[in-house]
């Protein structure tokens, strides 16, 4: 297996962009990425597109060559990967395997989603199709309600409090306010976070990530070629993808995500690092409880202690291990298919020292965790300075 590096990144802002269709978003991120890597599109040897529900959101299928040809990438394999909210994390994983295995040298991954052209009730329905339609969804479950049931159980078993969930929202909004590419650049207070409109008890509006449009892109290359392409290569030190049941009611214990634990264990082993050594992280806070559980499953804190960890400030921008310095899905936005690669973009910016006012103090070793559905897919990536 060859060591692999990220040699270019690009993204659009995340937000609501009525004038940009799905292809325009993907092309904008892709062109910025090619420029960042100083590469002509004709040099890309394989192309991956992470996208959850383009066919449902905008009616367009066959999205990978639809985007790659618009970028000027001709004739090469162009593959769409769908894994719910982990679509582009999974696309990144598969691109990494191609480069690591020596199949191709220059592989591009774009993640994209166009969500805001649909009304919220329809978006909720499309998102729910990532759950089990024959059971939980037929009973009326939404993704917010599945994570609400996870939160209820976590509160029951570990004594996690409503305030702990709110603390995650406050923290991520504070960081996102410093991110010019974030969807909602608005700090909120704990009181506001506790008083949001109810969505699915105990979760309110401020516990839920945003419905966004956006795209993000990266280019991978073998480490040995990275220095000829960029002054600031970032190495993929470890990566793992894992899977689990789609239906929440099939899981033995819903206060943990076994796919996160498994993907993390693979990534830590490959990177040869321990959870304690991770300096900062981008975690999949689709709902506030998801960040709390991820911080436990990744080994940053003991099980059940994720709520107090966030509340006490350990994971804030100036804390010992900043989590979601980008604002996370909560404030930066969650264009579902773009989120995984968007996290990689944020790690790369931090590692290169280009994150501006939200630059974290220690930034040589970062971790991204991208979760699909209620935990049926997880991709964990560990990146570091090359």
């Amino acid at each position, binding site marked *: 297996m060859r060591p692999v590096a990220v040699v270019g990144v690009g993204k659009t802002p995340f937000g609501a962009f009525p004038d940009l269709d799905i292809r325009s978003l993907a092309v904008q991120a892709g062109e910025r990425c090619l420029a960042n890597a100083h590469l002509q599109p004709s040099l890309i040897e394989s192309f991956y597109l992470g996208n959850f529900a383009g066919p449902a959101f905008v009616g367009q299928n066959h999205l990978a060559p639809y985007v790659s040809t618009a970028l000027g990438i001709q004739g090469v394999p162009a593959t769409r990967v769908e894994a719910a909210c982990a679509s582009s994390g999974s696309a990144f994983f598969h691109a990494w395997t191609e480069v690591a295995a020596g199949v191709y040298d220059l592989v591009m991954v774009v993640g994209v989603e166009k969500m805001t052209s649909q009304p919220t009730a329809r978006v*909720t329905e499309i998102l729910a199709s990532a759950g089990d339609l024959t059971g939980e969804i*037929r009973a009326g479950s939404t993704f917010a309600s599945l994570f609400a049931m996870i939160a209820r*159980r976590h509160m029951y078993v570990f004594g996690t409090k409503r305030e702990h969930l709110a603390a995650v929202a406050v923290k991520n909004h504070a960081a996102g306010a410093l991110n010019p590419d974030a969807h909602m650049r608005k700090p909120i207070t704990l009181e506001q976070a506790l008083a949001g*409109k*109810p*969505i699915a008890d105990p979760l309110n509006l401020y516990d839920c990530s945003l419905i966004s449009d956006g795209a993000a892109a990266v280019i991978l290359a073998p480490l040995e070629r990275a220095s000829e392409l960029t002054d600031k290569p970032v190495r993929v030190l470890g990566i793992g993808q894992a899977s689990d049941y789609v239906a*929440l*009611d099939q899981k033995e214990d819903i206060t943990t995500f076994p796919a996160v634990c498994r993907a993390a264990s693979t990534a830590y082993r490959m990177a040869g690092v321990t959870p304690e050594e991770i300096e900062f992280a981008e975690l999949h806070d689709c709902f506030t409880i998801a960040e709390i559980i991820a911080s436990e499953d990744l080994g940053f804190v003991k099980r059940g202690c994720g709520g107090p960890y966030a509340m006490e400030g350990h994971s804030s921008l100036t804390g010992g291990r900043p989590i979601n310095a980008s604002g996370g899905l909560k404030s930066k936005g969650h264009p579902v298919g773009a989120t995984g690669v968007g996290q990689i973009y944020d790690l790369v910016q931090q590692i290169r020292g280009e994150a501006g006012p939200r630059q974290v103090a220690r930034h040589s070793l970062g971790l991204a965790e991208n979760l699909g559905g209620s935990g049926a897919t997880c991709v964990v990536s560990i990146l570091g300075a090359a």
Partner: protein
Amino acid sequence: MRTGTVYTETVIHLAAEAFASEVPFQTAIVALDGGGRVTGRILGDRVTIGDRVAEVEVRNGVPFFRKAQTV
């Protein structure tokens, strides 16, 4: 009819299109006495984790439960 214990629950205030007219409504994962868990709807009184429930009907494959009367 099946009986069981509430493993977890929520009250949904924002539903998908098909259920929008029914909010707020409660869903729960019920640990069935015969083994296994199932996601269903709760009718009548709200339930919390640990409550005993009994199935009252199955509509379109979805089990509907009601809080069990304690004797």
